[in-house]
Each structure stands twice: as structure tokens, then as C-alpha cells.
């Protein structure tokens, strides 16, 4: 927490509201336009940039969901990929393998199935704490995968293909920028159709993913800044004290688990739709660990932090693909370096900044308040 960045943040916070709104919209537009701009250095050589960005949004979504469980409620979940798999498989079964539902109908069902999965896993296991919970959830993630491998009904190792895509709405074409000559030029030979969910162009999937991330981000903020968010935080900080202050901690832990699962299921469903094909190999333990890495690297408990973590975990290995297998090594080294240098994550929740800003408001309020309070003299 360097004073320079703290000052920058508080200056950002102090901006007038209209300026902030314009700033947010500009940032969102930039994010939407990113794959069209194809900025040099940032875009990924050799891999489809739109596809990479879609993967980034899925990691972001998963990180936001897992952050509710790990960051807010303090429950270490090592089997989050299990929820991702339930969402993906539900969508796959309903749109291709056993039925012919449209995606927009199958997706909510997939999310509800994942929610149910979260409750079923949480109800018996949330009575154990800490390391034990980590082990149980780890087992859960693997069990889901083995069920998929061994059950004909879920396509075994062969997996499920022809999963439905989102409905297309071909309105108009948007040209990309071309940087080949050193200056950005509109390239009308390279266009993206708004919005066609096809095989070749991945950019519309990214737009869909980004939209979902923004919606979940807003929902996350609304829930966190409420009685529910406080109950989660109190439970994480001191479960017994929370319980004795009237917080039904078990119920809130289950709620965190279910909410996190819900978001994970959503991500899994979208992933299945984009991939068009899933098999048990898509849901390895490795992904649970990567998801958790995104949350921990970013700074658990901070929604922007975990998004940054997700971007790093999903994007960097794709950007530096030319290093081949070394990228995993580098990734591991980066994690170790991070653990030593910033054990709280890159962006731990910055409660104190907000606290200071509110303090000034309060001082203002207190000036208007007359000093008949007996306690005032005592403190002085």
C-alpha cells in the first residue's frame, strides 16, 4: 500500500459523480472495443485475440464467484471447478445430448442446478472448518469429474459436442483496426458482425462474457454493501463472535457457497456454449487451482483485485505462448515471488482509504452537532 497509489485512489474517489459515471462508461467502451482495436503488444500473436479475451472474461466471472466464497466468507474451496462443470454439463445435456433446448433456456436451468449442487455440497460440509473444508471440496471437484468420465449418460471420456450457441442477431459489421503500417487504419476486409455467434469470430462471445462480468460485478457490490455482506465478513473474522451477535453463521456460509456456485455455473454454461464441445478433461483439478490463484493473486476480498488476478492468470500464458512450456515455470516463479513480496495479493481490500474519506464527512457532520454530549468531555 504505497502512499502514492493511496493518494491516487482517494483522488479518484473524490471526483464528482458525473465525471465518475463518464469515466466508467469510457472504461467499459474501451473494454468492449479492445478486440477491434487489436492494439500491438497487447493483442496475442498466434492465438485468436477475441478467444483469449473471452477466456479472460470467464476467469473473471469465476474469480468473482469464488471471491464470494473465499474472499468474503473465508471458506477455502479447492473444488470450484466442480460447479463450473455442473453448469457446463447441464447446458450440454439440455441443448445437445438429451434435448434440444435453446441456450437461453438451458443456461438458467444450469445455474439453478449448480445452485442446488452448492447447497447439497455445503449443507453437510460447511460444519467443518478451514483445512478440512478445503479437503472435502477438493474431493467434490474430482468426484464431479469422475462421474462425468464414468457415466454414459454424460458422454464419458468422449464428451458432448454440438452444444447450442447463443442466438445471433446480425445487425451490422464493424471493421477492425489494422496496425501493419505502423499507424492504425480501418480494415474493411477484417470485420466482426454485430452480433453473430459463429465458429470463426470469437469477439461476440467476448462481448457476451464482458456484459455478464459487468452485471455480476454490480450485483456483487450491491450484495456486499448490505446486511448479507456484513454477515459474511463478520463470520470470516470471528465465527463464534458473529454467532453471538445474532448472525446465523451456518446459513450465511451456505448462502455464500450457493451464490458462488451460481456464478460458477453461469461461467461453466457460457464456456460450454462457446467451446461447443466439452469432455471431462475440461474440468481438471488444475483449473480449481488456477481459479483460486486468480483470487489470491488479485487480493481476496477485493472484487477489482480478483478481476486483475483473473486477467493475469488467463491472459499472460496466452500472450507469452512462444515461451512454450517455460510459461508454466515462469508462472510458478511469479506466484512464489508474489507470495514473498505481496502475501496479501496485488490489491488487498483497501478499507482504510474509504474509512478516511468517510471520516472527513463525519467531521463535517459533527461540527453541526451541539456538544451537550456528556461523553465528549470524558474523551478530551
Amino acid at each position, binding site marked *: 500500500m504505497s502512499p502514492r497509489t493511496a493518494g491516487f485512489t482517494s483522488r479518484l474517489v473524490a471526483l464528482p459523480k458525473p465525471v465518475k459515471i463518464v469515466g466508467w462508461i469510457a472504461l467499459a467502451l474501451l473494454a468492449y472495443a479492445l478486440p477491434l482495436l487489436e492494439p500491438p503488444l497487447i493483442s496475442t500473436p498466434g492465438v485468436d485475440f477475441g478467444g483469449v479475451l473471452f477466456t479472460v472474461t470467464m476467469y473473471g466471472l469465476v474469480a468473482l464467484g469464488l471471491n464470494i466464497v473465499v474472499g468474503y466468507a473465508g471458506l477455502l474451496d479447492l473444488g470450484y471447478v466442480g460447479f463450473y462443470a455442473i453448469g457446463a454439463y447441464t447446458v450440454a445435456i439440455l441443448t445437445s445430448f438429451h434435448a434440444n433446448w435453446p441456450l437461453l433456456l438451458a443456461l438458467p436451468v444450469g445455474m439453478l442446478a449448480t445452485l442446488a449442487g452448492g447447497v447439497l455440497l455445503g449443507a453437510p460440509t460447511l460444519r467443518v472448518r478451514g483445512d478440512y473444508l478445503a479437503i472435502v471440496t477438493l474431493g467434490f471437484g474430482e468426484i464431479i469429474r469422475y462421474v462425468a468420465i464414468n457415466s454414459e449418460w454424460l458422454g464419458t471420456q468422449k464428451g458432448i459436442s454440438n452444444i447450442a450457441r447463443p442466438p445471433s442477431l446480425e445487425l451490422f459489421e464493424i471493421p477492425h483496426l489494422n496496425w501493419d503500417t505502423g499507424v492504425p487504419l480501418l480494415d474493411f476486409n477484417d470485420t466482426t458482425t454485430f452480433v453473430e455467434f459463429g465458429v470463426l469470430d470469437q469477439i461476440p462471445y467476448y462481448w457476451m462474457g464482458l456484459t455478464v462480468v459487468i452485471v455480476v460485478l454490480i*450485483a456483487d457490490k*450491491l*450484495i456486499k*454493501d*448490505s*446486511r*448479507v*455482506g*456484513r*454477515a459474511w*465478513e*463478520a463470520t470470516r*473474522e*470471528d465465527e*463464534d*463472535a*458473529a*454467532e*453471538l*451477535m*445474532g*448472525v*446465523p*453463521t451456518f446459513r450465511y456460509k451456505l*448462502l455464500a457457497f450457493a*451464490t458462488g456456485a451460481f456464478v460458477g455455473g453461469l461461467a461453466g454454461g457460457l464456456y460450454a456454449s462457446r467451446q461447443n464441445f466439452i469432455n471431462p478433461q475440461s474440468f481438471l483439478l488444475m483449473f480449481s487451482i488456477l481459479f483460486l490463484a486468480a483470487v489470491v493473486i488479485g487480493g481476496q476480498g477485493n472484487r477489482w483485485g480478483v478481476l486483475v488476478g483473473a486477467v493475469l492468470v488467463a491472459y499472460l500464458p496466452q500472450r507469452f505462448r512462444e515461451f512454450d512450456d517455460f510459461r508454466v515455470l515462469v508462472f510458478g516463479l511469479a506466484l512464489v515471488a508474489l507470495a514473498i513480496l505481496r502475501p496479501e495479493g496485488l490489491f488487498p*481490500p483497501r*478499507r*482504510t482509504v*474509504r*474509512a*478516511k474519506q*468517510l*471520516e472527513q464527512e*463525519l467531521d463535517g457532520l*459533527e461540527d453541526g452537532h451541539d456538544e451537550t*454530549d456528556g*461523553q*465528549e468531555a*470524558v*474523551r478530551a
Partner: protein
Amino acid sequence: MPEHDKVLEVENLTLKFGGLTALDDVSFHINEGEILGLIGPNGAGKTTCFNAITGVYKPTSGTIRFKGESLAGKKRFQITQAGIARTFQNIRLFPTMTALENVLVGTDAQHSTGIFSALFRLPKHRREEAEGHDRAMELLRFMGIQRHADELAANLSYGDQRRLEIARAMATNPKLICLDEPAAGFNPEEKRVLMDLIRKVRDQGYTVLLIEHDMRLVMGVTDRIVVLEFGKLIAEGSPAEIRDNPAVIAAYLGVEEEDAS
């Protein structure tokens, strides 16, 4: 005395941990609107008694009735919601939350906003947030720590953390508030101020159960006193009666007086 005036009745409460009897057949009651002192030497079972009342420990035998209703089988949060709040001997705030948020968690005990009300900012959420915020600020002001409302609880001074614990307990809107050595570690002047404050808490309509070590303070602030020694109730009465009780003097005051002087 009519039955309904007893806020809390402890009857034949026994609590055993393996072979150790922490509380042995203890019976007492607390009248509405009084400050009852619970005293005794270290290890007498005072905090154990608190823990039994607030549902942390399950009594081996005996009953605890709150407003005439048995607390048996109630979960800890249900007991709090029913109207018994407590502070902790070792401060147990939520360190990463601000002072205000700590108190808000307390006010939330009487609220019912769920995830949907919060997500869609329904009127219930808005009303309860506003109510809770006003009540929390009022309590922080009452405890004299409103200046620190938006500081993290962990950053508060030791004394302010103790005051914050009381504010948080009061925020749950209890009938009975149990204070476990609220003045531990305070200097005499701070203790005096705190005892005045505890009297004010009572004047606001709360009933207070107070564990305190400092005999002079207990004598000054309480209406009645219950004395425990080795898990047994050895005396019960007004401060004056307790002061003259030979058993209490033998068990407690003699030793304590020497220490104090």
C-alpha cells in the same frame, strides 16, 4: 415479587467438563432493570456461567429461563435475537471491519434483509440500512467513540475497543446485556467513567449482568451481587450484605484487599 419481573432465572445450573465441575448447582435470578454483579476469584466459573447463559456451553443439568422461557435447545444466534447480548473478556471484535460496521452487525440481529432485498435495493433494505446506521451512530456517540466510527476496529485503542464491544452488544437491542469484565485493563479513572456509563445503560431500560474483578467498583455500581467460588454459589445479596458476609470475606475479599492496598 411477581414472576414476570425476573428477566433471567438460573436454576440448579450444573456444568461439567469431563471430571471437572465448572458450575455446581448454581441458582440465581436477575430482576428487570437491575445491575447484578457476578463476582468471584479467578476460576470461580463466572465466564462459564456467561457462556451457559448465551448458549456457548450446554448445561449438564439445570435450566436457564429468559423472560419465563427456557433457553434449552436454542442456538446462540437465536438467544441473541431473543434479547441476550454479551461482550467478551478477551476482546473479540471484527478487526477488518470499521467500528460503525461492527455495531451495524449488532443492529442486523433485529433485521431481516436477505440477498434479494439487498440485490434489488428493495424498500426493506433501504429502511433497515438507514435505521441501523442511525442507531449505530447513536450508540457510538453514547459510548463516546463516534469520532472513530470509520476507523477499522483493529486500529482503535484498547479502551475504545472495549467501549465498542459494549456498543455492539447494545446494538442487538437486548433485554439483558452481559458484560464480561468490561473494565479489565482500565486505570481507576477510566473504570469510574465506565461504571457511570453502565449505570446509564441501565437507565436506558437495559438489565445488566456484570462480571467485574474490582470489588470497590462492583459495590458502587450494582444493585445486587452473586458470589461464586469454585463453581458454587456462596452468597447472594445487596452490596452491603456481601461486604459483611464472612464466607465472601474469607473466599475473596481478604485476598483481594491485600492485593489492592
